[in-house]
C-alpha cells in the first residue's frame, strides 16, 4: 500500500522535523530513516526531500551546515532549531488531535497497527 500524495505532503514536514529532533542528519539518512520507519510505505521521489529541507531552513525551522562524508564528499547536515522544536511540538498536538478523532471515527479499524500519522511523533 502506498500513501496518497496529499497525505504524504501533509505528513512530510512533521516527519522530517521529528527525525531531526533525534539529532542532526542529512538528506539520504533522513530518507533511509523514513523508509525504515514506514516499511517503505511512506515514500516519495528522493529529490523532493531537498526542496522541503530548504523550505524548512528558510522558515527557520532547521539550520544547515556543510560537512564531509566519510568518503570525503561534501554533505549538507540539517539540525532542528529552537523554533523548529516549537513548531514540531505544535504540529504534534495537531496531529494527535486528528489521530484521536480518526481513532474514534473508525473504532477497531482494519488492523490494529498504529495509525500511520503517529509517525510524526517519531
Amino acid at each position: 500500500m502506498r500513501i496518497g500524495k496529499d497525505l504524504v505532503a501533509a505528513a512530510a514536514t512533521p516527519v522530517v522535523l521529528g527525525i531531526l529532533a533525534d539529532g542532526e542528519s542529512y538528506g539520504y539518512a533522513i530518507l533511509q530513516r523514513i523508509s525504515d520507519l514506514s516499511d517503505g510505505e511512506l515514500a516519495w521521489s528522493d529529490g523532493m526531500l531537498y526542496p522541503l529541507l530548504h523550505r524548512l531552513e528558510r522558515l527557520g525551522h532547521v539550520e544547515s551546515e556543510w560537512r564531509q562524508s566519510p568518503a570525503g564528499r561534501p554533505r549538507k547536515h540539517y539540525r532542528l532549531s529552537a523554533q523548529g522544536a516549537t513548531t514540531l511540538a505544535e504540529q504534534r498536538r495537531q496531529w494527535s488531535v486528528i489521530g484521536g478523532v480518526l481513532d474514534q471515527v473508525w473504532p477497531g479499524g482494519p488492523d490494529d497497527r498504529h495509525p500511520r500519522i503517529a509517525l510524526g511523533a517519531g
Partner: protein
Amino acid sequence: MAPDLTPGVDELIASWRDWMQRRDALSTSDIVELEGHLRDRIDALATAGLTEDEAFLIAVKRLGTIDELSREYAAEHSGRLWKQLVLADETGIEGATDVPSGGLPLMRRANGLAVALLLGVGAGIAVKAADLLTGDPELVFRNIAVLVLPFLAAWFAWRRRPPLATIVGVAASFAVVALALNLYPFDGGSSTVTVASQNSATAVLATIGSIAALWLVTGIVDAGGEWRSDRARMDFVRFSGEWLVYYVLIALVGGALSGLTVAVFGSIGVDVLPFIGEWVLPCGAAGAVLVAAWLVGAKQRVIENIAPVLTKVFTPLFTIMMLALIVAAVVQWNLADGSRDLLIAFDLVLVVAVALLVYSISARDPELAPGWFDRLQVLMLAAALVVDVVVLVAMVARTGEFGWSANKTASLGLNLILLANLAWAWWLQVGFVRRRVPFGTVERWQTSYLPVYLGWASIIVLAFPPLFGFA
C-alpha cells in the same frame, strides 16, 4: 561502503550534473547536495550487489524526473527564475564558499568589480582633471574618447591579458589620436577660451570619429590582440550592443537620481545643481562607461543578451517605417527636396539598419534553417537600400548647390560605406534565405567590414581637419 567508484560512474554522474546545471531553479550547491545523495544511494545499491551502472540508473530514477525536481526547487526558490543582477552573484559566492572545497564544480563567476570601479573612478578623475587644468569644456569634450577609453582598454587588458605588442599598438593609436585632436589648429587656433562657442565642423567630426575609431581600437584589446578572428570581432560587437543598453539604463537612473537630488536639496533651500552639473555628471558619465563594461562581463552567462531582443522587436517596426517612407516619397515625390540634414538623417537610418542586422546575426543560432525573420530582414534591407539610393542620387546630383563641406563629405562617405555593406549583406541574405549561402558567410561579411568603419573614422579624425582647413 565502496567509496572508490569506477571512472564509468564518475562520467555518468558528470553528465547527470551537466543536465542539472541547465536548470535555473537549481543552484550549484543544490546540485552538490543532490550529487552527494546520488552517490550515497549508488554506494548502498552497489553494496547490495548491483553493478555500478545499474545502481546509477536506479539512483537517478529514485531522485525523480528532472522536470518534477526542478519544479519543486522552483516552487521553493522562485527568485532564482528571475536571474538576479549584482546581488545574486554575491549570494552565489557566499553559497559557494560554505561548500567545502572537495573538487566542487563551482562556476567561476566573472568578478573584478573592484578593478572596474577603480578604473571608473580613474576615468572620472581624468575627465575632471582635464576640465580643471584646461578650464576649457570644449577641449575636454573634444578629447572625451582619449580621456575615457584608455580606462576601458585598461579594463580589457586586465581581463584578457593581451600580448605586449597589442598594448603598445593600441597605446600608440591613442597617442596619435590625442596628438591630432590637440595639435590641429581647429578654427584658427585652439587657444580660444570662449566657453560655449560652437566647435568648428571638423572638430566636431574629429570628436565623433575619435570616439568611433578608439572604440574599435579598444576592441582589439578585448579580443586579446586576436583582432583578425571573426569570433573575437563578433564578441566585441556583442559587447558593444550590451554595453550600450546598460549604459543607457545607468544614464536613465543616474539622471533621475540627480534630478531627485536637486529637487530634494532645492526644497530645503540648498542649490546643488552646480555641483551635480560640474562634478557628478562628468565623473558619473565617465565612470559609468566602466561600470557598464563590468556589467556586460559579469552578466555574460547569467542574462540573455538584450540587444538581440530589441532587434527582434524593432526589425518589423523599422521595416514598416521604411516601406511607409517609400510610399510617402512616391506620393509626395519630393524626397530630394529635403533639407541639408537629409543625408545625416539617412546615415542614421542606415546605421539602424546595419545594427538591426548585426545584432540579429550576433544572436542567431548558425544551425537554424532560414525562417520568417530572415525573410523579413531581406525586405528590411531592400527597403532601406531603395530609400537610400533615391536619397543619394538626389543629393549627389545637387552637390553643386550645397558644395562639398566637411560635414557633407563625411556623411556622404559614411552613407556610401553603409550602403555598400547593406547591398552586399542584402545579396548574401537573399542567398541565405534561398539556402545557397551558408550562415557563416553572412556573419563573416559583417565582422570583416569592421575595419572599414575604423578606416573611415581614422580618416575623419586625421585627414579631414587639414583637408578642410580646420574650418
